[in-house]
């Protein structure tokens, strides 16, 4: 195809597209969170990223603790099982270890910013946020939010959010076909908007399926090959979060992560063992064990039926 979508391994994808100092949108909203990507970024020693992500979770916490992130735009960041603190995030913000620059939007404003960016429009009215800290506090995006007077009601000041249009985004999806048509099964949060907003889109997918399966659920399509730079097939790429139709979140792993990373030393040991201590995501999964992964599986045949 003219647009040149190609299949790559995850290490190849990360080394070709994600460079130190880059700005990177990471898909997922506490589901389809691509931990496999974060691990690979850390393994490749990439640093100084500007990361944009709606819901931080373990993916961003890990990247912060590993020193991969310089600037971060999020709407919230936690370990949602428990919930337990995201320790690396807390150490970075409370103690500057390591230092990050943090910028925040409410999830609604974040969504509207992606909507504007995805639609090719310069800004979008959004949630009234006057008086909130989110409106008032600005760091590396001093013009993230503003107000305009409504041309239809001069008495009314409307909060608007500037378009968010990241140069590069990486998203976990459920499945693709050979042409790169990508689907998420179930709720999509801001995924469609974010994929449109990103100038270039990378995908990691659970599997390649026959195009007949894609065509039986065309309403689940979130991207097509011509929008996509590259695809990596990475089973359990969203572990330990949910990939609907394939597996559910590993609750225990969320706690294990929180406990292991509660101290800086623990964090280092965790990364040495679980991230740098393995060659790739396959080895990471092998250590978890087939039985553990099988226990998470939720595959339902209705998603694959093409009758």
């Amino acid at each position, binding site marked *: 195809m003219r647009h040149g979508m190609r299949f790559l391994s995850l290490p190849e994808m990360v080394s070709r597209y994600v460079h130190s100092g880059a700005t990177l949108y990471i898909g997922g909203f506490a589901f389809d969170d691509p931990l496999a990507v974060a691990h690979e970024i850390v393994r490749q020693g990439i640093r100084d990223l500007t990361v944009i992500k709606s819901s931080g979770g373990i993916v961003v916490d890990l990247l912060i603790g590993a020193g991969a992130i310089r600037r971060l735009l999020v709407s919230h960041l936690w370990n949602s099982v428990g*919930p337990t603190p995201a320790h690396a995030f807390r150490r970075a913000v409370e103690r500057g270890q390591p230092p990050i620059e943090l910028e925040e939007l409410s999830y*609604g404003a974040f969504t509207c910013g992606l909507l504007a960016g995805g639609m090719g429009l310069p800004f979008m009215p959004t949630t009234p946020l006057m008086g909130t800290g*989110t409106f008032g506090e600005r760091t590396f995006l001093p013009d993230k939010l503003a107000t305009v007077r409504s041309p239809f009601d001069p008495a009314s000041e409307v909060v608007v959010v500037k378009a968010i249009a990241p140069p590069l985004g990486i998203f976990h999806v459920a499945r693709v076909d050979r042409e790169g048509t990508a689907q998420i099964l179930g*709720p*999509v949060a801001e995924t469609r908007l974010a994929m449109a907003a990103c100038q270039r889109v990378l995908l990691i997918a659970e599997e390649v399926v026959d195009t007949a399966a894609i065509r039986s659920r065309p309403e689940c399509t979130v991207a097509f090959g011509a929008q996509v730079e590259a695809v990596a097939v990475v089973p359990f790429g969203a572990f330990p979060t949910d990939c*609907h139709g394939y597996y559910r979140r590993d609750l225990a792993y*969320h706690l294990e992560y929180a406990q292991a990373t509660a101290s800086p030393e623990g964090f280092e040991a965790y990364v040495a063992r679980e991230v740098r201590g393995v060659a790739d995501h396959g080895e990471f999964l092998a250590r978890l064990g087939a039985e553990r992964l099988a226990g998470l599986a939720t595959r339902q045949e209705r998603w694959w039926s093409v009758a």
Partner: protein
Amino acid sequence: MSFARMLLRAAAEIPEGGVVFVGFHWPMLVARVARRVYGRRFLEVYENGVVVDRLSEEVPTSPCDFRFMDSAVAALGSMEALYLVLGRGRCDLAILDAPIVDRHGNVDSTCVGPYRHPRVRLAGSGGAAELGAFGRTLLVTSNREARSYPAQVPFVTTPGLVVGGAAREELGYPSGTGPVGLVTPLGMLRPDAGRRELLLVERFAGVSPDEVAATFGWPAVGRWDDVAVWPEPDAEALALVDDELARARSNFYRLPEEVVG
């Protein structure tokens, strides 16, 4: 016991047949208690686009824990949930976890201490700003400590009745929105008649004036005798809540110390 009462009291606010926007954390348990104890039927809308109308077997750890997708009637996106449903005014109630809340019902779920040098960094807004901007908001908290109830929060994540000195209506928030109640382990606070600050209107049995005075960072009681006492839940209700908490615990919920079994 105070945690169970808090869940029960909050659950009682859910209107039969209503549309309820449910925030992360305790609000998800409140919704379950409303179904199990009060038999309420209502629609739960979540910020990720999930819409649910019945109880799932397991307690989901977050709206993005899709073990409850079998109870879903719609799988949409966040723009649909936050704006086409909530922003458009379709929700009867929005239930929001309130880690720190002030006299005006402003909620801080971002930081303890100054934003740029916080003593404790919390999760941040997510959709909490939207729940408070567009919803008739029921705030719920399991906190008993005075530090959770300052006169003024250090960071307004979710706008209350008065934000930075201005009434919310003056700041462009839609009319008919804002906090309608704050359920705490001590009892229920409501906006006063002028809708400017939260006052205790119902207390749980055994809660004393001193305890209230020591907890809230503002004069949260007019006349003590005007504060109603919420009837103690019966054994059946408590047993259902206990069962719910056992399910939550088995899915790794961190429960308040009083109920950690």
